[in-house]
């Protein structure tokens, strides 16, 4: 037992945190999802077992919301991981005194509060003479309503790109310069160096950024809420987490259904876990966490 004492002691803080902030909320969410707790029944909820899950299955629009979620996560992910990579590569290929300010600029969308950021988008996208895009193109329309998906992916992607950009930049900088010299001596072009030297060594950061952004996009909806409120029209841009939020916390008439919302949140937890496992499999996690091969002493 004594041999386990030190490891257990060191693991204790993390275990407490995981229990408090992950395990207990998940268990509480699952328990809540088995009740009919809502505004009306808040003081006296009843145990309904799997009824909320059955309700979700019977809801004819859950397919649409799931597809929307896949669309949102997929396209935003492609945009922000891809854009992050391009930005990191471009800014690393130029001298630092140009690259650093360029990267700093890309942090702007991230540090602007979401509400202000969305105001900027609305200012750009409104009808003429109020919206810049309408003025520039000469086509007066509300571009957010007309192209909701493009706007959502762009708005989210531009914020998310900076995260990948920072991680990828630091990963690129950690690549030993010898490898670049060797590539140069071999006569490799810039593209060949990127393709054959940089990208293979970025596999782990790409996995990390992709996995992290997927999980974060699955649960994030604030820009959708502020830009389109899930519309326009019929669930056009409503994603799973936004729908759960509306059911559980935000309803025009004030009658929220915590139980049903919790069931949706529980489903999201399962989706998150499945997606994470899939990534680990796809990127061959075991190989990635072995001894690093890039360090040259």
């Amino acid at each position, binding site marked *: 037992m004594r041999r386990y004492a030190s490891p257990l002691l060191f693991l204790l803080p993390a275990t407490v945190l995981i229990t408090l902030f992950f395990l207990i909320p998940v268990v509480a969410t699952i328990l809540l999802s088995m009740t009919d707790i809502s505004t*009306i029944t808040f003081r006296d909820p009843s145990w309904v077992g799997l009824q909320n899950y059955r309700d979700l299955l019977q809801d004819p629009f859950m397919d649409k919301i799931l597809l929307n979620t896949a669309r949102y996560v997929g396209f935003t992910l492609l945009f922000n991981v891809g854009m992050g990579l391009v930005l990191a590569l471009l800014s690393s290929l130029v001298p630092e005194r140009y690259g650093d300010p360029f990267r700093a600029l890309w942090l702007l969308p991230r540090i602007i509060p979401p509400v202000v950021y969305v105001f900027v988008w609305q200012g750009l996208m409104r009808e003429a003479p109020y919206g810049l895009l309408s003025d520039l193109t000469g086509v007066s329309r509300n571009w957010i309503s007309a192209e909701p998906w493009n706007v959502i992916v762009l708005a989210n992607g531009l914020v998310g790109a900076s995260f990948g950009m920072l991680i990828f930049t630091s990963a690129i900088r950690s690549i030993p310069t010898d490898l670049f010299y060797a590539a140069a001596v071999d006569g490799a072009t810039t593209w060949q160096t990127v393709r054959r030297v940089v990208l293979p060594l970025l596999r782990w950061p790409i996995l990390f950024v992709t996995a992290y952004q997927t999980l974060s996009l699955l649960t994030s909806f604030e820009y959708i809420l502020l830009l389109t409120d899930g519309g326009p029209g019929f669930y056009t841009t409503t994603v799973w987490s936004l729908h759960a939020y509306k059911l559980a916390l935000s309803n025009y008439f004030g009658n929220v259904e915590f139980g049903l919302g919790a069931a949706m949140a529980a489903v999201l937890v399962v989706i998150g876990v499945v997606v994470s496992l899939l990534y680990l499999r796809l990127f061959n996690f075991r190989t990635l966490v072995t001894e690093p091969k890039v360090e040259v002493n």
Partner: protein
Amino acid sequence: MRVKWLLGILAVLLGLAYAQRTITIQAWTIGPDDPSITRFTNLQEAAERLNADLAKEGADFRVKVEGFFDTTDWDPYLRRVLLAFQSNQAPDIVQASAALSATWAAAGFIAPLDEYIPKYAQFEDVIPTLWDSVRFQGQIWGIPQDTEARPLYFNKTLLKQLGWSDAEIASLPERITNGEFTWDDVLKTAQEALEKGVIEPGKGYYHRPKNGPDFIQWYRSFGGRAFDPETGKLVFTKEAALRYFRWLKEAVDSGVLERDRLDGNWDRFHQNITDGKVLFFSGGTWNWAEWDQQWVADKGGQEWLFENFGFAPHPSYKKGGKPITLSNPQAYMVSANSPNKEIVVRLLAYTTVPELDGKHAVGSGHLPILKTTPETLDDRFTREVSYLLNFTTFQPAHADLSKWQDSFFRGVSAVESGDLSPEEAVEVVAAEMQRLLRDQVIIE
């Protein structure tokens, strides 16, 4: 020495005993339209009057109103209220839609007020039907704060450009009232305006850009029934919903109504209307005050509005049918946990007087709740629009009404966006209501 000390302590104790207490009454209120701020300031003014009377009576306490007036949106406000109720930290007074009194009463969050109301003569002046809006299971759960009508507005200038004479325009409210001008005529007129280039596509008819009580009004105007007073259950009339959905589809397909009208953007709603681009538009009387103060103040305010806009009840779907409007009265509700219910209701009585009622009505474009208030007012809009109350209806007092409304709204948005045909949408709405409301809804 000891006697001096004792006398000193006694004096302090006596002083404390006679010191004036301040009872702080927490009140949370919302517009969200800015001009409705009198929902909060009237409470503060009433507190001053109450304190003056308390002084005359020699009472050992005074009241102070604290809280806020919210101008954001119903969603965050109601969430805040709900979380406060759930954590037993609710304010003494919550102002919200009277229809919510049923939900909050069922949840045990608010107090019945029947025993307090007879004590104050001010409440006798309240228009009697307004008490129905806060009555649930035989008890009264709130004090009416204001009411309104939801007219069908029309742009007189655009109608004129379409070739209507002044007399035709002036008689439109009457023609709607006597059932001569129907929803189909609204559609035909808008289609004609579109063909003649008087309006841009999508601007023939505007309704609110997001969910709200109004949809029940339009459903009723197409012959729908939402409540069965005998059983106390909600009702969904498929035939009426189908009529309404078909109308919406035709409006969208013919370019009268924007396919993305439900985009949640109120600015876009107000902007196009006050830019004079929209022919017919459904709104509330409070919108008039918003337009006046926030959107057309530089064009001439009310005068400009009267020159350009007219209003009428919402028409029937059939010739000779009855027109309709909806009132969604606001009410002050008293938290079940408030330790000061007696004095809170007295404060509300002091708020329920013609002067403050009139101040709120004129300032915010709502309608007075007191029988005597109109006599004290000289405001053209209040005078001209008040007749709409003759056609008014309320939302049914049912704790699960919101589920009915959410389901119905899904149908509306599905039809407008083209995701479902009217026939499919009716079936989907019926199935969803059946699933969510179970035995609490009659599908007919």
